[in-house]
C-alpha cells in the first residue's frame, strides 16, 4: 500500500505542470500526506508585508486535496474540483507553508475534503479549505 501510494503521489506531482510552477512537494507517512510549499518570490501577493497571494494559498490547499485523493484513489487521472470554500485565518508570511488534507467522505463519485495550512505552528493555521471533488475513474 505504502509503496504504491508513494508512487501514485510522485506520479501526480511530476505529471502536473502547475505543481512545478508552485514549487510544492509532499511527504508521505503511510497514507498520510503533508504537502510543502517553500516560500518563493513569485508567490507573493503583497510586497509590503510581504505576504503570499490569497490565490496561491487557495491553490496550494486545492492541489493538496487533489494530491491526497491521488494517493488514496489509485487513479492516474486528475480528479475534478466541483467547488471550494477557502477561509483565510492569518496572513501567509514569507515562510514555508504546510498543508494536510482530511478526506471527510469519499463516495462512489464525489469526495468531500477538508484541508488546513499552517506555517510555524500547526495549531495556528493560516487558511482552511472545504471542497467537493468529482472522482475520475480509469
Amino acid at each position: 500500500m505504502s509503496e504504491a501510494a508513494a508512487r501514485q503521489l510522485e506520479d501526480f506531482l511530476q505529471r502536473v505542470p502547475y505543481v512545478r510552477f508552485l514549487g510544492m512537494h509532499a511527504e508521505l507517512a503511510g497514507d498520510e500526506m503533508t504537502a510543502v510549499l517553500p516560500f518563493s518570490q513569485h508567490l507573493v501577493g503583497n510586497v509590503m508585508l510581504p505576504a503570499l497571494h490569497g490565490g496561491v494559498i487557495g491553490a496550494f490547499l486545492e492541489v493538496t486535496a487533489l494530491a491526497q485523493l491521488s494517493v488514496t484513489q489509485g487513479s492516474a487521472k486528475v480528479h475534478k474540483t466541483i467547488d471550494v470554500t477557502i477561509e483565510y485565518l492569518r496572513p501567509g508570511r514569507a515562510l514555508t507553508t504546510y498543508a494536510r488534507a482530511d478526506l471527510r467522505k469519499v463516495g462512489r463519485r464525489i469526495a468531500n475534503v477538508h484541508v488546513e495550512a499552517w506555517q510555524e505552528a500547526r495549531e495556528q493555521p493560516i487558511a482552511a479549505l472545504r471542497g467537493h471533488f468529482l472522482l475520475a475513474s480509469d
Partner: protein
Amino acid sequence: MSLDPDALSQLGHHMATTVPQAAALGFRFLSAGDGRGSIEAPWREDLVGDPDTGVIAGGVVTSLLDHTCGLAISAALRAHPFSTATLDLRIDYMRPAAPRAGVTAEAHCYKLTRSIAFVRAQAWDVDPDDPIATAQAAFVLNQPPAP
C-alpha cells in the same frame, strides 16, 4: 485621493502586472470602473493542471479570481486601499476550461462598508455567458494611515 478613470486604469494595469504572483502568471489588465474590474490570464504550458487534457490549472483561476476581486474593490473605492486581505473565497467550477485556452475574469464589488468589501466574480474561456467558474468573496479593507 479619488481616482479619475485614467488613473484607475493605470492602477489596474499596475495591480495586474507588478504584483509578483500576477506577473508570474502573465496577467493582462483589461478594464476597471464602476466597481468592476477585468483581468485576463493567458494559457501557458507550465500552468496546466491536467496533463491529459492541457486544461489550465484551477489554481491559476483561483489567483485570477482573487486578484480581479481586488481590482474591483479599487474600482469601487476609486482609491488604492493600503491593502486588502481575503476573508473567504468560494469558487464553483461549472466546467473545465477548453484545452489550451486562457481565462478571463470579471469581478463586481457590489457592497462596500468601512471595513469590508463584498465581491462576486466569474471566469470564462470563450464566452462570458458560459462561465467556467463563479466566485463569491469577502475582503477586509486596511485603509492607509491618516497622513
